[in-house]
């Protein structure tokens, strides 16, 4: 409780009253009502699709020293509230990549394997139904700034992520995508990811339902 009050105070100081009120409202609404449909996907890293074009990107392993630049990126995309989550990810030993374009941080990608010190939140809650095995890796929070999208840049970013994970010995990359996120579904489909199953989640006040069906 005390920790939450401290977090709230810190958030308020960083983002102002208006943003804080919006964030609280969004959180409360999500707690009361939720309806989502996501597709669990898997990509084979032994047969990576080479993108049609090489983008001018530089991929770097994400470390604590990147957090200030990530915070700046999150502010630019209007999502400063995720800074604290990213700091926790680093503290929890999760891995990630950051992408640089013209020496500016333009995107990120988080990943974990089954040997991490703690499970990634999505996997810990188990609603996705993904159980990582040997050679498996789970990718999450793939993001690229709007102004850097198009002309195959996201495609190339993902290709570099896949290649780097394959070089580290992984053979399957798991993830999920919201069913209505058409641009993301297009990228994963063109990169050869296979839909494994669909997860439907709904919540109305305290009543929660989760169902999974094969895709």
């Amino acid at each position, binding site marked *: 409780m005390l920790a939450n009050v401290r977090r709230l105070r810190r958030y308020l100081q960083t983002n102002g009253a208006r943003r804080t009120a919006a964030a609280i409202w969004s959180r409360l609404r999500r707690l009361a009502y939720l309806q989502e449909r996501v597709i669990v996907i898997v990509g084979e890293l032994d047969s990576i699709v080479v*993108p*049609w*074009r090489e983008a001018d990107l530089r991929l770097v392993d994400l470390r604590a020293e990147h957090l200030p630049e990530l915070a700046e990126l999150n502010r630019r995309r209007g999502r400063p509230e995720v800074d604290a989550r990213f700091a926790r990810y680093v503290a929890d030993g999760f891995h990630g990549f950051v992408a640089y374009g013209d020496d500016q941080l333009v995107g990120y990608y988080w990943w974990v394997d089954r040997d991490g010190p703690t499970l990634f939140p999505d996997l810990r809650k188990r609603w996705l139904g993904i159980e990582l095995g040997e050679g498996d890796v789970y990718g999450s929070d793939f993001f690229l700034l709007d102004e850097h*999208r*198009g*002309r*195959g840049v*996201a*495609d190339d970013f993902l290709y570099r992520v896949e290649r780097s994970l394959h070089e580290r010995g992984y053979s399957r990359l798991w993830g999920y995508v919201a*069913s*209505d996120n*058409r*641009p*993301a*579904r*297009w*990228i994963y*489909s*063109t990169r050869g990811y296979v839909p494994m199953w669909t997860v439907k989640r709904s919540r109305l006040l305290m009543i929660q339902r989760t169902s999974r069906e094969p*895709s």
Partner: protein
Amino acid sequence: MSTALEIEQFIVTDIAAGRGIDAVGHDRDLLADGIIDSLGITELITFLERMYGIRVDDDDIDAENFRTVDSIAAFVEQKGA
């Protein structure tokens, strides 16, 4: 004008505009050449829905449905049937 020709024309004049592409052919791999990217696919779907009165579902977003002009035309025909 056939469905395939109309789709080809839209791809050339709208999606690939400014790339110096005059024709794409009906069996050219639009993905391998990067003609349809993640932004282009939403433009293409909007066009198909408006032009042919079909409804493209989220689960239809599959590379094989949109790989060539011919496969897009076949997809439109199947959705309209």
